[in-house]
């Protein structure tokens, strides 16, 4: 199976979006490019753009490898993608509002009731709660894969606390530093204003009754969290405070932060702490990362929490397979961006099929993330498949399966020159009074030849993503 290469597809020759770049690349000295690659690493290390990998002996800070060949998308391709993305995030928010209120979609029988009732991501505490401005998931990362010229699929919706946007911004910053001449030749749409858009977006969903400029803060689990760099980066770029649970407490019915001049009220909290840790009085009692009593303030409508608690029910992998139905139910139209066909192992027929075709499928845990706990059938050994089969038989409802898609490839710079590697794309979407999508996103690339796993925790790298202004 030959993958679709976004620069040089097998039959068609150089694709249009890459023409100008290719013209420039041909005139570059390979040694200079290698030198630029090293420069890029220095920039990242110097700036401290690092992430920690959980489960490693030495909880050291690592760099996500950066490749200097951009991934290029034409303006037309992008317009089509954004239409599909907008439709999708509208449906996600409508679904969340419905699921925590009237549950029409369950009554209509489009999504099975038990899938919600028994799901850990569904928070009964949110039933009947309407968040400020009616928005549940404010910041969404939609993972998209491409398999052919006109075939894009959504691999996963990240509706809880999607990360990676700081890499999108720093990757562009790095490219601008390394290759200023390229940006003079080629018109690339800017992504730099993402933090301003995020700020505007968060301000637009401030609680009722907050007049004037709301006080916004970013809540981080702390400097040892793997995504701490991003939390600090976003707070910095938005010009808001970066707070930890220990800085916050409930004062007079509002969430307030301890400042050098006493406690100050917060109106909008962009939290990067998981639901379970948000409020020890409501969720995990042992959590020190959250704010005791914040859920009471939230229910009283005195703070906006972005994303809202309980949004995980919308990006759960078991729900994912129902997204086409969900989109149609709420928007009245067919999905513009398709789903990858998915077998729900909870259904006996599907389980049978999956067990019989383990060697061809990718099997994922319903609640897993980051590429952990999954089986890539074609790449797995017989023994791995047999072991996985047992796990699957023991808890079928814990798994879904998808065909191994041949993700598109993009060239990366290796020691032996350009070589194709598989990529995916995570655009970032902001929802408030309107939907904002910055033209670009995070392109993740599997650096190992033939590998389909693009996760940074498992050897993936990133690329700058260009949306052409054409």
């Amino acid at each position, binding site marked *: 199976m030959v993958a679709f290469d976004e620069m040089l597809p097998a039959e068609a020759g150089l694709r249009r979006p890459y023409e100008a770049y290719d013209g420039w690349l041909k005139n570059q000295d390979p040694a200079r490019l290698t030198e630029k690659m090293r420069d890029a690493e220095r920039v990242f290390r110097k700036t401290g753009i690092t992430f920690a990998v959980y489960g490693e002996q030495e909880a050291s800070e690592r760099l996500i490898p950066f490749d200097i060949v951009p991934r290029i998308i034409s303006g037309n391709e992008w317009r089509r993608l954004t239409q599909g993305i907008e439709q999708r995030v509208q449906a996600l928010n409508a679904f969340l509002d419905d699921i925590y209120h009237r549950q029409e979609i369950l009554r209509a029988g489009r999504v099975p009731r038990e899938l919600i009732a028994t799901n850990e991501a569904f928070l009964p505490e949110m039933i009947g709660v309407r968040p400020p401005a009616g928005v549940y998931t404010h910041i969404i990362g939609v993972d998209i894969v491409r398999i052919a010229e006109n075939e894009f699929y959504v691999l996963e919706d990240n509706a809880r606390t999607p990360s990676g946007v700081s890499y999108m911004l720093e990757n562009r910053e790095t490219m601008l530093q390394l290759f200023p001449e390229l940006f003079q030749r080629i018109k690339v749409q800017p992504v730099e204003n993402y933090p301003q858009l995020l700020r505007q977006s968060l301000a637009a969903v401030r609680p009722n009754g907050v007049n004037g400029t709301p006080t916004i803060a970013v809540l981080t689990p702390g400097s040892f969290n793997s995504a701490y760099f991003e939390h600090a980066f976003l707070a910095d770029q938005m010009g808001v*405070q970066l707070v930890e649970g220990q*800085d916050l407490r409930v004062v007079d019915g509002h969430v307030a932060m301890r400042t050098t001049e006493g406690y100050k009220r917060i109106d909008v909290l962009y939290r990067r702490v998981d639901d379970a840790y948000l409020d020890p009085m409501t969720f995990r009692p042992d959590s020190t990362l959250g704010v005791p009593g914040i859920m009471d303030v939230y229910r009283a409508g005195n703070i906006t929490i972005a994303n809202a608690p309980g949004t995980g029910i919308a990006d759960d992998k078991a729900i994912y397979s129902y997204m086409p139905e969900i989109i149609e139910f709420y928007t009245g139209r067919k999905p513009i961006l398709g789903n990858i066909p998915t077998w729900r192992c909870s259904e006996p027929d599907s389980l049978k099929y999956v067990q019989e075709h383990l060697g061809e499928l990718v099997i994922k845990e319903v609640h897993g993330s980051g590429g952990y706990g999954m089986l890539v059938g074609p790449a797995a050994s017989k023994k791995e498949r047999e072991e996985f089969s047992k796990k699957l038989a023991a808890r079928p409802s814990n798994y879904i399966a998808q065909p191994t898609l041949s993700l598109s490839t993009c060239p990366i710079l290796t020691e032996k020159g350009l070589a194709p590697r598989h990529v995916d794309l995570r655009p970032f979407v902001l929802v408030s009074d309107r939907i904002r999508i910055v033209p670009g996103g995070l392109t993740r690339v599997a650096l190992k030849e033939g590998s389909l796993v693009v996760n940074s925790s498992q050897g993936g790298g990133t690329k700058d993503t260009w949306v052409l202004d054409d």
Partner: protein
Amino acid sequence: MLLGRTANGLYWMNRYIERTENMARLIDAGLRIALTRSQDASEEWNSVLLSAGAASAFAAKHNDYTAENVADFLLRDMSNPSSAVAAIETARNNARMVRTALTRETWESINEAWMSLKRVLASPIDQRELPGVLDAIKRETALIRGSFYGTMLRNEIFDFAQLGTYVERADNTARILDVKYYVLLPSISWVGSSLDNYQWESILRSVAAHRSYRWVYEAEYKPTNIAEYLILNARMPRSLSFSYRFLAEHLKFLGEDYGARHPAQEIAERTYARLRGTEIKDIFETGLHEFLADFIRDNNRLGDQVAQDFGFY
């Protein structure tokens, strides 16, 4: 507006940067004496450890007071929280925590100092390389200071960081003096011996003042002059008076910003007024050691009061 935790982080970030640099200066001065004197230098190294507040921790780990052991313990031993490598790491962790309050250049200079010193101090230091290592530490901390002064806005963020610098510096200078106070006492009969000259020079060297001393006083070292220079001269950047001039000033700025007078400001202003209203002969009369011991205690108290006044915890 500033988080109490951020103010705390800024304060300790600069305390530990200052400490990193002071470790290098202390060893530099000790090394000088060890190299220029034929006698056993173990007593000198013990003084260095005392000044660094690390004497008992060192004794628990080492028997020999050699340059190798002392330099290893004060520069690259992670079990010693004040060693240069541990201090720069703590400084960097604090900087990482308060990153949004720092300019990019300041953060990068701290991050780079941490990376470079970790590398330099990763393996045992060859004695021949020790001077180079000490230079590297001083250079990295100078670069941090350069970007800090060159790029940071003079607001509360700057004030809190500077409080850390000067509380640490005052503590360091006072300790150096207190450990050697006996060589500064005029009553000792063998004043002016070559041994004393070494000691005096070592004191000045450990606060980088062996040249500037001569610009202020006559070329000959005199213990009362040295004590006066390090305690009372408000223009000598590592003196107690200089440190308190700035502590009082930054606390005054904070008070004006917040429209309130904090107890910490009272303490700093009182101490500064006392330093200004004193002559060195008065200090010697009441007892140099007593004066310094009181000063170190009050200085610690100021640190605690700052933490309390500004919601550090």
